[in-house]
Structure formats: C-alpha cells, structure tokens
C-alpha cells in the first residue's frame, strides 16, 4: 500500500479547485462545531466558576435553583429574607470558616445593587482564583462608597469618582430613587466573566442607610433623617438576602447543611452550589443539545459534499484506475487510494477548521472578553475536541468506503483495459 497516500495527494492536487471548495466547506462546518463546543464549555465554566470556593449558600426557604439564581446570578427576586440573628448563629457554627452576607433589592440603571461586607472581595472568586482583583480604585470604606463590576463601568462609562444614585427595587426603569444619598464609585473590579461584572457593591450599612426614611417599601415623606443623625446601631442590618459560607473542611458540608435545613426558628435552605449549578445547567441542556445537533448536521452535510466530490469523479477516473491496475495495483490498492483521498480530504478540512477557529479566537478573543466576558483564548484542541475531530475523521473515512467500494468493483470489472 506504500505510496498510495502520495498518489492520493497528487490526485487531489490535480483537482485543486473542487478539492479546495470541499475542504473549505468541511473547514467551516468544523469551525462552527468547535466554536459552539468552545463557547458551550466556556459558558459552563463561567457558570461553575461563579461560586468557586463557596461550600454552601444559605437563604430563606426556597427551591435550590431559585436561591442560586438570585444569590449568584442576581436573577429573579428572593422570596424572603434571613434574619441577622440567624446569620450570626450560622457564622458561629464551629465548622464555618467564613461567611459573606449579601443584601439585594436595589438597583442602579438595571444593574443589581449588592449590599455586602469587605469580605466579599476577599472570599468570592472565579475559577481557581480566590479574591477579586480591582481594575481601578479600592474596596468601599466610607458609607456612601460603591464598587462596580467591569460591565457596569464599561457600559455606563463609570470610573472612580463618578457619582451614582441607587434606585429602590430592581426594575430597569426606577420609579423611586434614593437620590437623597448619592454614592461615589471608589473601585472598579477586574472582569471575571461572571455575574459579578454586573453588580454594584455597597456596604450592608449603606443599604440600611438609604432605607432610613422608608417603610414597607415606600418612602415616608416627613421627618427625614440622615445617616449622620442616627446612632450606629440603627445602621446594623436586621436581615439579609443570603449568605455565602466557607467551611473549615468540606467533610462538614452535609452536617452544616442539615443543621441549616432543620433550623426551627426560621425556615432556611442551604444549598451546595455545585449541585444546584448542575441542576440549573441541566435545565438548559435542551438548548445546548439543539446547538450541538445543528453544528453536527452542518458537519454531516459537509461530509456528504465530500462524498459527492469523490463519487462525481469516479466515472472520469476509470481510466486512471485501469492504468494503476496495469502497473500492478490490485483492486485493494484502488480501494485504498479512494479511502486515502477521503482521509486526506477530511483531514485537511479538520485542520482548516482548527486553524480558522484558532485564528478567529486570536483575532476576536479580546473583543469577546471585553464585550461579553467570555474568556476564549487560542490553544490546542482539548482532549474532548480531539476525540470529536477524530470521530469526524473516522466518519469521513467511513463515508469514503462507499466510493472506494464502487471503484473496487469497477476496477475488478474493467481490469487493465477499460473501453479506451
């Protein structure tokens, strides 16, 4: 069989226009498939890294996915709050190493405001990283300091020193503004590719301060007081939305979860973020599968083009095959030649697809990161991608079996002397 690949290569080069179009078709479909695969994985990774390092999330009694959605992704509304006393008891449990409380309910131009403590910037992380880096400025210190995520800064054009007004509620068009107490941006977080990029972070005391003159979700018109006029205890939070919890040892996770879930004074839910994220991701599995099926169909269509390209040439190549047989090639060589062509064509299409993908990521990577917070960087195909590419290559070779078998049978029939 030696030299067959060389012959196949020379034959393909001789039909370069058709071959290039076929390879381009396959390359583009491979680009699509790998692109979707990369984005899918990056989306899943971004999803999972949103709560990296957090062992439990505790909130008022709710469905785990609902608690996850509002505490981590700032989606939806919390059903109830968690009393500050309860939070203090939780914090005091022996296996608990750290806690980060969050208080939600306000917004700024559609971006959720997160009332929290300085621990948030130390304990929260994404991926393998622990702690949030600051692109500009510093964490909040004064009562009316605010830290903003990268998306907020980029979209609204904010920088340290910008004055902002928070709005009551989470509606994009706010009807009630806390305009009596404007905040000053003091820090901008580096991009994380998570929901953190879309947050406005202030202290828990600040959340209490802006609601000093509010009752039952509505401002009270008379007897307005300012934070400076009230004792510090009045700025102590009475309740929070949820708390992120880190444990001394992960072996205590289920023990603490049980303690929280069975807490009698208040109905609570403690979730393992990884488990809840997996449940949530499973809900989106349909979309994921649809995308993959579409990309897979594109690859299949490209492989059919490849099959057609080879089949279409078989008639005009009968003399070529007979000539090969005249110089000693057997039907198995003819079979091998066609199979080698299919392998080379598919291989070239796969290589082109990978090159196109890496080129696209090299060019578009920074823009994707800046625009969508999606971290896609060029790099060699992962093992999973290599398996997919190997599968496509195998598929191309399997499809090549058909024209190879046709050529095999014809060469048996024609021998060395096709009708010349």
């Amino acid at each position, binding site marked *: 069989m030696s030299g067959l690949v060389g012959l196949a290569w020379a034959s393909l080069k001789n039909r370069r226009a058709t071959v290039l179009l076929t390879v381009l078709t396959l390359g583009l479909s491979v680009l699509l498939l790998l692109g979707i695969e990369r984005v899918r994985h990056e989306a899943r990774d971004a999803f999972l890294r949103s709560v990296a390092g957090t062992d439990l999330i505790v909130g008022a009694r709710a469905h785990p996915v609902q608690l996850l959605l509002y505490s981590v992704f700032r989606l939806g509304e919390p059903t109830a709050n968690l009393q500050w006393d309860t939070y203090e008891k939780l914090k005091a449990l022996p296996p608990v190493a750290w806690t980060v409380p969050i208080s939600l309910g306000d917004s700024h131009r559609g971006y959720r405001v997160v009332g929290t403590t300085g621990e948030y910037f130390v304990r929260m992380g994404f991926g393998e990283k622990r702690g949030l880096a600051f692109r500009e400025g510093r964490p909040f210190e004064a009562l009316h300091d605010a830290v903003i995520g990268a998306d907020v800064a980029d979209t609204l054009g904010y920088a340290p020193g910008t004055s902002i007004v928070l709005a009551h509620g989470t509606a994009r068009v706010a009807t009630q503004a806390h305009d009596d107490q404007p905040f000053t941006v003091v820090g901008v977080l580096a991009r994380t590719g998570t929901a953190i990029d879309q947050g406005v972070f202030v202290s828990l005391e600040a959340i209490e301060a802006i609601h000093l003159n509010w009752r039952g979700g509505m401002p009270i018109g008379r007897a307005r007081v300012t934070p400076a006029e009230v004792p510090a205890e009045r700025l102590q939070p009475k309740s929070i939305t949820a708390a992120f919890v880190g444990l001394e040892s992960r072996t205590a996770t289920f023990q603490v979860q049980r303690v929280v879930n069975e807490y009698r004074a208040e109905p609570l839910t403690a979730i393992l973020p990884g488990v809840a994220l997996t449940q949530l991701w499973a809900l989106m599995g349909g979309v994921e599968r649809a995308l993959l099926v579409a990309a897979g169909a594109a690859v299949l269509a490209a492989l059919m083009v490849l099959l057609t390209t080879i089949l279409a040439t078989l008639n005009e190549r009968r003399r070529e095959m007979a000539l090969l047989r005249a110089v*000693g090639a057997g039907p*198995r060589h003819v079979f091998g030649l066609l199979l080698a062509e299919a392998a080379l064509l598919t291989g070239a299409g796969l290589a082109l697809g990978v090159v196109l993908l890496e080129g696209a990521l090299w060019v578009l990577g920074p823009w994707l990161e800046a625009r969508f917070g999606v971290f896609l960087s060029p790099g060699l195909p992962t093992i999973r991608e290599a398996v997919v590419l190997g599968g496509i290559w195998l598929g191309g070779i399997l499809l090549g079996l058909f024209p190879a078998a046709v050529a095999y049978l014809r060469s048996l029939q024609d021998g*060395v*002397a096709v009708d010349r």
Partner: protein
Amino acid sequence: MSEVLRIEGLRFAWPRSPWTLEVPALALEAGERVFLHGPSGTGKSTLLNLIAGTLLPQAGAVRVAGEDVAKRSGPARDRLRADHLGIVFQQFNLLPFLSMVDNVTLPCRFSKRRRERALQRFGSLDAAARHYLAALGLGEATQASRRVIELSVGQQQRVAAARALIGGPSLVLCDEPTSALDTRNRDQFIDLLFAECEAAGTALLFVSHDLTLASRFPRQQALGELTASAVESREVAA
C-alpha cells in the same frame, strides 16, 4: 532462452455468451518480438486482460514467467503483473497528476522486484526514469519537468514505453500503441522500443490491426489464426 509467456488451450467467454476467445497455443521466449494482429472485435483487449491476470479463462492456462496466472490468488496475480509485465496502451497512458518521472517510476511503487532492479542498475529511481526517457528521446531537463498533459501524443507514448520498460519486466504488452501517431513518429517509436527491449532482454507482444507494421517484426501472428476453429481448419487442410 527461457519462456516468458505460454498460453495453452485457452478458452474464455463472457457470461451468457458463446466463446469470445479460444487460443490453443501461444508462446514467447525472452527477448522475442511478436506482432499479433487482428481486426477490431477479435478479442485483443480480452487477451491482454487474460495475460495480465485481470480476467481468468474458463479453460486452459496462461503462464507468465513460468507461473500459472489462474492458480495464483488475486493479490499474487497483481504482484506477478507488477513484476513481469509492462503495458502500453493506444492512448490515455499517463496519470495527468504525476510528473513524467513519476509516471515512469509508477510500476516501482507496486513491484519490489522492479524497484530493486532499477536501483541496482541506475542507483536511483529518478536516474532510471531519466535514462529511459533519454533513450526514448525525452532527455532534456526542461521536458522532464513538464506536465504530462502538455506533451504531444507521440511523447506521451514514449513516456508510457519508458514506464513499461523500467525495472526490466519479462514481457512488454503493447495494445495498438502507434495508432494515434503519424508515420514518422510511429517508426521512431518502434525503433526506440525495439532498442530498449533488446537492451533489457525483454520480450515484446505488439498487438495491432495495422498490418503495415508487421514487416518490422521477426515473428507475426494473426489472432484469428490462433483460435481453435482456425487450428482445426488448418489441420483438416493439411
């Protein structure tokens, strides 16, 4: 002299057809040059396929270099053809995607024996190809790098002859190789072919319907005279 081809009691028919070809006996010695002639449709191409082992007779035997073709397996027949036969057709002799040199060395991709013989004699396949091309009047470097589809028909036939001769096969089969050539090119082609066959000790079976060529060959044979019925007629006449 050793025998390179022997056909005995050969009978062949296509499915659901009467006998297409009957050859009671035909033999060629090493280095012999035989002109086999017959009108179109008398089974010349079929005989070629039978000698090449791509068709098998229903009766009788074809021996190439002492080997009974029909008794060998398919791959072994391919190997026998690669090792011992060089074939030149009337036209479409070359692979258009290969260079002249690559076309000439093509049999060496399939025959270890011919590759080794070419290497032994010329040192490299490239040198072997260039030797035959030069001997057949295609030696200029500019021609060697030309694409084969840019060659004239006469030049293409000479490249095909070089391919048939490389590695010293036992027998060269030519199937109407000069029918597309003018008289001058035809005579030149035959002269060069004879010279190279003689130099290599290769037997030549030249099949053509053009009887004007017959006188160039020491031995002529009409295909019709080979058939069983013709032999019987001659025996009756005698």
